[in-house]
């Protein structure tokens, strides 16, 4: 039986954010992390570099090798939590160990969504969210001399996989249910740019197409083709299934902690159970633009949530400032960034766009306030200035709307805000 | 030199200025104004200079006699009424306040005046309203009942001057030459006759209508009130407005 002042289930970015925050406040309290992977926390968004061989798993480490020692963290990995008992303040691991805690953080992240496609569990069908996924994929490619890949899911993860596969020499086809790529990350015009990029690099795209079945190779179990609802059959040596992620909230749900889609949390990232906090992809934190809680499974938000949870766990009360959806993507060297409500569904928004050679910028305003942006190519430079406008709800007159659209400079901000920025009062 | 003799009734003070040196007289006035006196009557004034120059507050001053040069020079606020003639430099570089002269005034009346109003019932001397100017809401006003001498309104940069010629005989011309030479701001309204050669070459001539007419009527009525004259009768005369043709009269004067 062990007791930790702070116990964290999950060993990714939210956990690291929490650890760093806890140690800002409390240098001595005992702290342990339960991680199911055999690695220190690593950069999940960069795993495609493993596939291309540009990085080793060690190089993917999110913090320096000394991190856990420096932070006095006991890393319990690879081990998996089986149950949480908030009443007894106890976490039971699958190996039977019982860990008692003073404060608990659930940072169990998300899991790959497996759509109802026949043969989804067939060998040769891979996810693309962990080092293990990539290792398995890589091993498969080498063992079978794989040449043709089908990526199901034209979202961020699927396209990262597609680009990496292409770069190591495979022929790649992307199947996307929606009628465009990155429908959840970009507006239609930016999506079209990305589609053009993929097509120009020889990737065949099936948009508005549903994969119906992963069919085996003749005489083998492993996948040999993807059958689409439209009747096409795409022969392949492997499939990457990237149809999104969902919060891994079972532990919390089974412990009687309130879960909606993800674990419900208040502004301190506290769950419905006493001294139990949740952060990262598993949690439903506050979206300041949508003005509601919802899971936003992106890396920077996970850190902020972990950090806020950590500060509160360590006794320094801190309200979560709220984040919103934002994505920084880059394919074939072309960057694309979106923030907030860049594709407003209803009336009442004002959209301004500026486009040129290798340059696309879209700003979305609600009244005087910037609420969303999309930038492609060189338009991404200094776009955080605009992100700051969204976050700080800086009122922008017609004059400054135009200035901001033309250039993300401080001179594009109203004087008072410009001065505050220069003084460093973000 | 005598001390100024004072007699006081509430905040009305009468000062006998006979034989009082101007410095003492002005010092006396300054002391009275500092004490909060609101009305001062100066009797037997005979050539004492700078009356009103160093008074910081609005105060009513009535003068019996002939004040000396630079009456109200740099003046900022007082209201002076002279029952007699004024000498040279009346209202020199005046900033605000009012001067009313029931007789004539000498040379350089209203020179460089920036604000306030001056009303002269009779004639004025040479160089009147030279370099008068204006600034924001400060638009000086000078109304002359009689006529003026040469260099009238020379270098004028702002403000409003009205020359009424009330005492000219029928068919008699105003006498001043070089009227408005180098003028680059403000306006001069002239009642009565001047010939072209009398005007500076930077000056344009036009009739008085609309807003100009309204301003003129206001000025003339104000003038007439001070001297119990018939404003309508005066306004029935023939007026012309002199205006600066160029804001930058010497714009092409230099080789850069």
């Amino acid at each position, binding site marked *: 039986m062990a007791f930790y002042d702070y116990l964290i289930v999950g060993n990714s970015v939210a956990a690291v954010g929490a650890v760093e925050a806890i140690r800002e406040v409390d240098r001595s309290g005992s702290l342990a992390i339960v991680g199911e992977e055999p690695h220190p926390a690593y950069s999940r968004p960069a795993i495609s570099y493993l596939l291309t061989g540009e990085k080793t798993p060690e190089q993917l480490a999110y913090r320096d090798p000394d991190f856990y020692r420096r932070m006095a963290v006991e890393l319990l990995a690879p081990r998996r939590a089986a149950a949480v008992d908030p009443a007894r303040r106890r976490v039971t691991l699958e190996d039977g160990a019982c860990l008692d805690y003073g404060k608990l953080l659930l940072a169990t992240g998300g899991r790959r969504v497996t759509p109802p496609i026949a043969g989804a569990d067939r060998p040769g069908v891979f996810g693309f969210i962990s080092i293990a996924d990539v290792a398995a994929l890589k091993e498969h490619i080498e063992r079978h001399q794989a040449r043709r890949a089908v990526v199901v899911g034209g979202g961020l993860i699927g396209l990262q996989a597609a680009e990496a596969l292409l770069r190591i020499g495979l022929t790649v086809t992307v199947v996307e249910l929606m009628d465009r790529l990155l429908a959840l990350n970009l507006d239609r015009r930016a999506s079209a740019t990305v589609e053009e990029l993929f097509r120009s690099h020889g990737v065949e795209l099936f948009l508005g197409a549903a994969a119906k079945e992963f069919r085996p190779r003749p005489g083998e179990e492993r996948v040999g083709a993807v059958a689409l609802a439209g009747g096409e059959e795409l022969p392949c040596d492997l499939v990457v299934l990237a149809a999104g992620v969902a919060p891994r909230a079972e532990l919390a749900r089974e412990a009687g902690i309130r879960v909606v889609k993800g674990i419900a949390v208040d502004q301190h990232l506290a769950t419905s159970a006493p001294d139990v906090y949740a952060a990262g992809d598993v949690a439903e934190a506050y979206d300041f633009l949508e003005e509601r809680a919802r899971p936003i499974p992106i890396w920077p938000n996970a850190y902020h949530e972990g950090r806020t949870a950590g500060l509160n766990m360590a006794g320094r009360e801190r309200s979560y400032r709220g984040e919103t959806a934002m994505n920084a993507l880059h394919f074939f060297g072309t960057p694309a960034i979106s923030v907030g409500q860049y594709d407003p569904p209803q009336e009442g928004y004002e959209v301004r766009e500026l486009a040129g050679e290798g340059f696309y910028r879209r700003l979305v305003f609600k009244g005087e306030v910037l609420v969303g942006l999309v930038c492609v190519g060189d338009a991404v430079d200094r776009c955080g200035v605009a992100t700051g406008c969204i976050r700080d709800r800086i009122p922008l007159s017609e004059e400054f709307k135009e200035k901001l659209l033309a250039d993300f400079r401080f001179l594009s901000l109203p004087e008072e805000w410009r001065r505050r920025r220069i003084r460093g009062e973000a | 030199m005598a001390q100024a003799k004072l007699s006081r009734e509430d905040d009305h003070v009468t000062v006998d200025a006979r034989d009082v040196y101007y*410095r003492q007289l*002005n010092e006396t006035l*300054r002391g009275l104004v500092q004490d909060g006196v609101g009305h001062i009557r100066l009797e037997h004034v005979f050539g004492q*200079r*700078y009356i009103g*120059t*160093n008074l*910081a507050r609005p105060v009513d001053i009535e003068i019996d006699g002939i004040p000396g*040069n*630079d009456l109200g*020079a*740099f003046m*900022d606020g007082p209201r002076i009424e002279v029952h007699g003639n004024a000498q*040279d*430099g009346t209202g*020199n*570089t005046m*900033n605000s306040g009012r001067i009313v002269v029931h007789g004539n005034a000498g040379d*350089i009346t209203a*020179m*460089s005046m*920036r604000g306030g109003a001056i009303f002269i019932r009779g004639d004025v001397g040479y*160089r009147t309203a*030279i*370099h008068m*100017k*204006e*600034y924001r809401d*400060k638009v000086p006003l000078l109304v002359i009942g009689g006529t003026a001498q040469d*260099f009238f309104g*020379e*270098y004028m*940069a*702002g403000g409003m001057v009205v020359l009424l010629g009330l005492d000219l005989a029928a068919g008699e011309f105003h006498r001043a030459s070089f009227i408005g030479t*180098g003028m*680059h*701001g403000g306006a001069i309204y002239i009642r009565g006759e001047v010939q072209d050669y009398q005007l500076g070459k930077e000056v344009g001539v036009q009739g008085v209508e609309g807003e100009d007419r309204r301003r003129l009527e206001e000025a003339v009525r104000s003038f007439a009130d001070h001297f119990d004259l018939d404003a309508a009768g005066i306004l029935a005369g023939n007026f012309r407005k002199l205006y600066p043709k160029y*804001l*930058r*009269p*010497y*714009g*092409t*004067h*230099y*080789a*850069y």
Partner: protein
Amino acid sequence: MKSYVLPEFWVDRDDYRCIRCGVCVNQCSYDTHYYDPEDDVVRAREERCTGCQRCAVFCPTNALTIRTHPYEYRPNANWRKENIRDLNRQADTGGVVLTGMGNDKPLRIYWDHLVLNASQVTNPSIDPLREPMELDTFLGAKPDQVDVTCGRVQGSLPPQIHLSTPIMFSAMSYGAVSYQAQLSMMRAAGEYGTLANTGEGGWRRELRVYGASTIVQVASGRFGVDRSYLNEAAMVEIKIGQGAKPGIGGHLPGEKVTPPVAETRMIPVGTDALSPAPQHDIYSIEDLSMLIYALKEATHYEKPVAVKISAVHNAAAIASGIVRAGADVVVLDGIRGGTGAAPKIIRDNVGIPIELALAAVDQRLREEGIRSRASVVVAGGFRNSGDVIKAIALGADAVYIGTPALVAIGCTVCQKCYTGKCPWGITAADPRLGKRINPDIATQRLVNLLRGWSFEIKEMLGGMGINAIESLRGNRLHLRGVGLAEWELEVLGVKGAGR
């Protein structure tokens, strides 16, 4: 019309050193330098260069040498480049040739023909590092008698201005110089215990905190003159004339009358600010007296009133009149006096050297027994502390310096002040250029200048065995002339060296 004027300066760019950083391009306010992206090279439009050296000073690799343009007409002692250039400029425009700064003609500089005395053996020199040396100077009329009882002066003295060194900053109007330049001079004057003069262009509200070290000017334009202007300053100066342009007025062109300049001068934005040649209320010494006393009345006799004239042929007689008219300080501005804008023909040809005017005025006032009734301040071409101390020995109470102060804050005497584009931000109307003067730095540089000159003056005084500048004042026996004609020695009232 094709101009026949050739460029005055040559831009020599070492292409190996030029890193295309663009600093010369952004620093030249005349758009001389420009970058050609096609050839990746920085080029120059030489005809625009004024030789101000801004680019050369700021070029991080010292790639630039700006030199006199080597073009040559046929050599001619009479028809020199300058004459031909001015003729062409006038043939181009039909205008009066303008210039800035002081007379640049090789008129005799008498300071360079006067040498100072020093103590040897018979009277010991004083070590200024050991002994107190006094440069304190008081400007104002001195009474014939002072009753001192128990160490205190009884009764009231005419108003006096205390200077900790006999060097003041000349009149330079806001509008002619930038706000930052004027601010720096006022701050430096305040810090060092001397005075700076506003010039006739008004006095900005923000600068009135330096009132105790400010002289305000009343000139023919009367810009911004009101009771508070007069009363918030330490001294009032009536400007009759200026050494660079005796007898003429000033025209600040409308485009320089920006909103802040208009506010300060109290005139509408964009109109020409014309200062007539004479003050039209002064056509005689009697009229001058009238204005002097009007100003004294307006300031309750608490401020000294100075009268500044250009040094002209009959300066001595005029100065006598000025003193008799009641001025507390007579200011003489010599032919080498500076200006922001003056017709070149006048700057170069009208007036007399300050050395002669000073000597003549001091002599005349002494002869008339009225020298103590006013202080004498001289201006116009002082270049160093040697000039200053010689002026004191010739009879001046203090000097005004203009160009040295401007040089201290960056001026290179390129003489293009009148364009309003001064690349050093000194005589610039454009707020982009005014920012080039950091008032903190400029103030420090000006204070350093005053400090350095004051040290030097103390050294020279000590060498003469004198421990107070007061003792040198008018003491022409400490001066000797070198290379001067009899008449010059006579006017200067000094003996030839060796006598």
